[in-house]
């Protein structure tokens, strides 16, 4: 109780002293200022960089999850691939039960002849999809309409095509409403799917593509199976959750026990995120080194000034003890002074760091335009500076608390 009161009173007095000796205090806390400013700036910059990089990944499909059935290597001779392929019930179960997956579509792959008038493509890539496919894969319908639930449930003979198909089949530039023959059956073209050129993930020459509702695809080939499924994550950092949830659902439905090898695989564009995180960790470690050194130097500065202060105020310490200050109280007093000094430095450092970040953000086209100082970095900076004060203020404070009052009062 008495210690808390003393600490609060001393804090106020110490602030007054810092204000009264502005230049000296500034120079003393320079190390702490630099340390805190750099830690704040680096954290904010990394946050900004991270936001930018994740946005890029999102465009490329960092939110996409790829799921398919696979035969573990040990079962290649005994098992059948057909048995481990995804079932439509499994895809629906993932859709309904995995919270980190916002939407999902199965993919059914085939290759059929397509005809329009006298033009024919012998083996056109044919994919059975759910309407969610466009958002998940990032290829929208640019003409006409996407499939509807009715297309799927009624197994209607409707299809979407791509630009390459229009070109190969010599369809009108606006092909919606035309009829084409797919595997010898009459399909109505209801829309055109955009062709996306991606530098990193898939590209080059596109082929003739025809999309049909997933339900309809099963009419084309009742023996066909679901090749794979694409899911969309709630956010790119939910990868771990998604893998765990999907794994749980599939293992349960496939009656896999703890030690069994999974008969499915879940892939994400995780490696890029991992690489980025590794790089960020490297930068953080490097910055941590700088911060550590400057806080060490700053701390030594604080210790020095506190030792000078103890020596200058020996008589005062003697008097305080003579009129009843316990050793612990004297220690707390000096410790609070050191911590206050460091906190003042930390506050200035926060300001400087904020200024640095604003300067960086002002650079046009900066990849760090989203940089901002998060609340936890502020707390970290405050914690670091207070910690420096405690660690480096401890020795002078103990020295003060151990002074013999008689000796101290005789000190010149």
């Amino acid at each position, binding site marked *: 109780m008495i210690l808390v009161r003393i600490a609060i009173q001393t804090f106020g007095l110490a602030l007054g002293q810092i204000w009264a000796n502005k230049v000296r205090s500034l120079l003393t806390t320079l190390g702490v200022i630099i340390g805190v400013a750099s830690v704040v700036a680096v954290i904010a910059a990394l946050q900004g960089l991270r936001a930018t990089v994740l946005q890029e990944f999102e465009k490329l499909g960092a939110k996409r999850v790829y799921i398919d059935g696979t035969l573990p290597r040990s079962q290649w001779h005994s098992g059948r691939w057909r048995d481990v392929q995804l079932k439509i019930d499994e895809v629906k179960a993932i859709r309904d039960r995995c919270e980190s997956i916002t939407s999902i579509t199965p993919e059914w792959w085939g290759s059929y002849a397509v005809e329009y008038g006298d033009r024919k493509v012998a083996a056109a890539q044919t994919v059975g999809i759910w309407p969610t496919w466009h958002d998940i894969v990032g290829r929208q319908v640019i003409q006409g309409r996407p499939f509807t639930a009715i297309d799927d449930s009624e197994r209607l003979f409707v299809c979407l095509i791509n630009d390459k198909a229009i070109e190969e089949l010599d369809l009108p530039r606006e092909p919606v409403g035309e009829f084409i023959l797919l595997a010898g059956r009459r399909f109505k073209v209801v829309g055109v799917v955009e062709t996306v050129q991606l530098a990193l993930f898939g590209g080059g020459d596109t082929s003739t593509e025809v999309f049909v509702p997933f339900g309809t695809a099963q009419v084309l080939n009742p023996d066909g199976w679901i090749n794979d499924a694409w899911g969309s994550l709630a956010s790119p950092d939910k990868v771990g959750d998604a893998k765990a949830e999907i794994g749980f659902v599939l293992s349960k439905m496939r009656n896999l026990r703890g030690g069994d090898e999974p008969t499915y695989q879940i892939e994400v564009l995780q490696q890029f995120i991992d690489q980025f995180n590794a790089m960020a960790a490297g930068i953080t470690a490097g910055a941590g080194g700088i911060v550590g050194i400057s806080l060490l130097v700053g701390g030594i500065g604080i210790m020095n000034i506190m030792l000078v202060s103890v020596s200058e105020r020996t008589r005062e310490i003697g*008097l305080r003890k003579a009129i009843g200050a316990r050793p612990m109280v004297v220690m707390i007093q000096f410790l609070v002074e050191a911590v206050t000094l460091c906190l003042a430095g930390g506050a200035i450092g926060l300001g400087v760091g904020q200024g640095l970040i604003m300067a960086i953000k002002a650079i046009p086209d900066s990849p760090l335009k989203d940089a901002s100082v998060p609340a936890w970095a502020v707390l970290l900076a405050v914690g670091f500076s207070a910690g420096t004060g405690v660690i480096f203020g401890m020795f002078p404070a103990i020295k003060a608390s151990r002074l013999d009052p008689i000796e101290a009062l005789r000190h010149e």
Partner: protein
Amino acid sequence: MTIRIRELSKVYKLGVERVHALRGVDLDIGKNEFVAIMGASGSGKSTLMNVLGCLDRPSRGVYELNGKPTHRMGAAQLARIRNEEIGFIFQSFELLNRATALKNVMLPMIYSRRHWRSARKRAKAALDRVGLADRMSHKPNQLSGGQRQRVAVARALVNEPSILLADEPTGNLDSVTTHEIIELFRQLHREGQTIVIVTHEEEVAANADRIVRLRDGRVLSDHPTAEDPIHRRWLAGAAAAAAEAALKEGLAEGAPA
């Protein structure tokens, strides 16, 4: 009995040498006494003062303050005794130069459990008691030596100590202010305050009820002031000197006649 001291000794180690500062002192001081402790330097009076003030612990012997055995107490307990039972007055005042008179007087109450809520009120009352009601917001460098010592007295009084310990309180003061401070002590004594004062000036000791003289760490004599032989001799000498001075003055005045 406010102070009860038995067989008190204090040994210092100075390198390999052992210095016997006190060698078995017995001393009782009652409530509302005004005692002067006198002795040449090296007689042990400063050591006795430090022990009385609980700044130092005896090597052997008993020191009870208001019945509490302080010789058995640890550092934190002694600090509390110093805070609540003892008021110190030092030769060089020991005021904090950064702080106003009022803040200086409030200082002991910062370390007190009893009075910190009423610290300001009590400090004002104490300053009023020593006649500095109009100097509360002055800093020590804006005050005269006598005023500074009054601030120190107010600081010593503010926690209502059972004893007031003054170590050469007039050592840094001129004769006019010495008189002022002595008057203040007499007034406090009349109001019931127990006072122990260390001094080497018979003039100052003359105001005490009782003089304890130390030599080589032992009590040499302990008499009421009026019966103390050394003091009586000094009084006689002073009276003779005064008479001589008066005579000279009288002769000088009488000469033209």
